[in-house]
């Protein structure tokens, strides 16, 4: 009981199982985001971007890269992690997890770790795709990688909560579609909030995604729309809230146990 991870075999088994699910459909998993990101580059980077002025000294095509990676990171982390825990609830195979000598921490690390791994891989693939279209420059590569991993982990944790909460496939779709997509599009993937009118700019500051995209873009181009410390505070705060909710879920057995 003393060790935090007393059942490493169990943790590894879940992680492997989740990764196997990813690898079974690896081509779809990778191809879809690569194609859609390429389309963004063709439309926004080449067609429209050529008429756009530089943003803080960065060509428009390159400017949208961090935001696009974040967009994929949010949606993929959320859907991978929520599906990963929802599906066994749906098929009934969750009985095995519930009856196994696996602690909540181990289960969460495995599910969230696997979901985050997938979206980090996807993020890097998109980064590689982007470098084909636009000249990329990464000012703070380690910070970039750190943000990539931490954002993926946070949104996977959030996805885990959504998966436990969801009672049907529709609910599984609701959060990404109804909340994440609008927040992300209005969060400055395609523009700098400095470009907005003062009223919209103030309004945007209520959108947490703005802070995440701003920080991530800073790691590329050394320029942030909002204060970097505030961005990191947001990310850490969101992570802490999700972690607290997950702890509560396991303590009470909410929607997992009768």
């Amino acid at each position, binding site marked *: *009981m003393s060790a935090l991870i*007393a*059942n490493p*075999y*169990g943790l*590894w*088994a*879940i992680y*492997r*199982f989740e990764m*196997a*699910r990813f690898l*079974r459909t690896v081509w779809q998993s990778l191809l879809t985001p690569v194609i859609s990101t390429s389309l963004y580059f063709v439309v926004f980077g080449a067609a429209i971007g050529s008429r756009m002025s530089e943003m803080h000294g960065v060509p428009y095509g390159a400017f949208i890269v961090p935001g696009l990676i974040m967009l994929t990171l949010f949606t993929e982390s959320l859907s991978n992690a929520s599906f990963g825990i929802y599906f066994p609830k749906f*098929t*009934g*195979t969750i*009985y*095995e*997890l*519930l*009856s*196994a*000598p*696996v*602690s909540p921490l181990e289960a969460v690390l495995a599910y969230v770790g696997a979901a985050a791994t997938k979206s980090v891989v996807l993020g890097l693939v998109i980064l590689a795709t982007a470098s084909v279209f636009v000249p990329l420059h990464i000012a703070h590569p380690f910070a970039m990688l750190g943000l990539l991993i931490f954002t993926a982990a946070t949104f996977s944790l959030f996805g885990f909560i959504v998966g436990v909460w969801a009672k049907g496939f529709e609910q599984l779709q609701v959060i990404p579609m109804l909340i994440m997509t609008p927040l992300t599009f209005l969060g400055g993937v395609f523009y700098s909030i400095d470009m907005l009118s003062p009223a919209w700019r103030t309004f945007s500051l209520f959108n947490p995604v703005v802070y995440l995209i701003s920080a991530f873009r800073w790691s590329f181009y050394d320029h942030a729309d909002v204060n970097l410390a505030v961005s990191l505070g947001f990310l850490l705060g969101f992570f802490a809230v999700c972690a607290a909710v997950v702890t509560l879920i396991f303590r009470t*057995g909410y929607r997992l*146990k*009768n």
Partner: protein
Amino acid sequence: MSTILSIKNLSKTYASGLTALKPINLDIRQGEIFALLGPNGAGKTTLISIVCGIVTPSGGSVLADGHDIVRDYRAARMKIGLVPQELATDSFESVLATVRFSRGLFGRKPDEAHIERVLRDLSLWEKRNDRIMTLSGGMKRRVMIAKALAHEPRILFLDEPTAGVDVELRRDMWALVRRLREQGVTVILTTHYIEEAEEMADRVGVIRKGELIVVEEKDALMRKLGKKQLTIQLKDALTEIPATLGAWPLELASAGSELIYRFDAKAEDTGIPPLLRQLHELGIAYKDLNTQESSLEDIFVSLVSTRTEAAA
């Protein structure tokens, strides 16, 4: 014999307000086969689910091989294997992958030799690389058993392992359970086929409306509650039972051509010789005689139904 599973005052009321288990006390002995019987909705699955950690108890405690299932859940759960009532498998996985997964999940390091043994025992070895969704229902049930055995549990729960299973698989299952017992595994099973309990169990527990109404050695139960029945086939049908036979609780059957006498199986004095003498004196001739012992099924039905009457 030592106790491997000790259930104390275990109760469960679901969020809906339904009380599925009234406080239950039960000790399971190391190495026995225990059959838990009861009508639909009696609380068998609820009881098993609590012990395995799938349902949270409302009260009471359980020790599995000395480990509290809540406080010391890791040690307790490593000893326990579960084959649930409902079929639930990972359709896209191969048989081998899913069984290896179960072993890892339960904290055991890989052991290919053990996995092969389990798969061979369940006639799954040939199918080891098949995706589970391509298997028949009976085969999927075997996969679930293989998963439950992957981590070498000391206590195995089989919740209706033979529901919807053909005769051959049922025989295989019985053979497997006996082999497990030889290896010292304690098996707790539920079934609606009473003949199964009769065939396999060392002890039987009957649960009804969340109450454990009987826990008894199977043999003792059958001796204690078993009835015998003597059927006398008459040469000429009777319209009524002669008054001089009033000392025996007799019934007429088959339009008066059969006389039926029920008596206590364990009684010294069955009352049969004087009955036959009396028939002879009355000039009632008979063609044939036979006696039957009531099965566990008859006992079970009478147990469950007499209690219903008593409760009503």
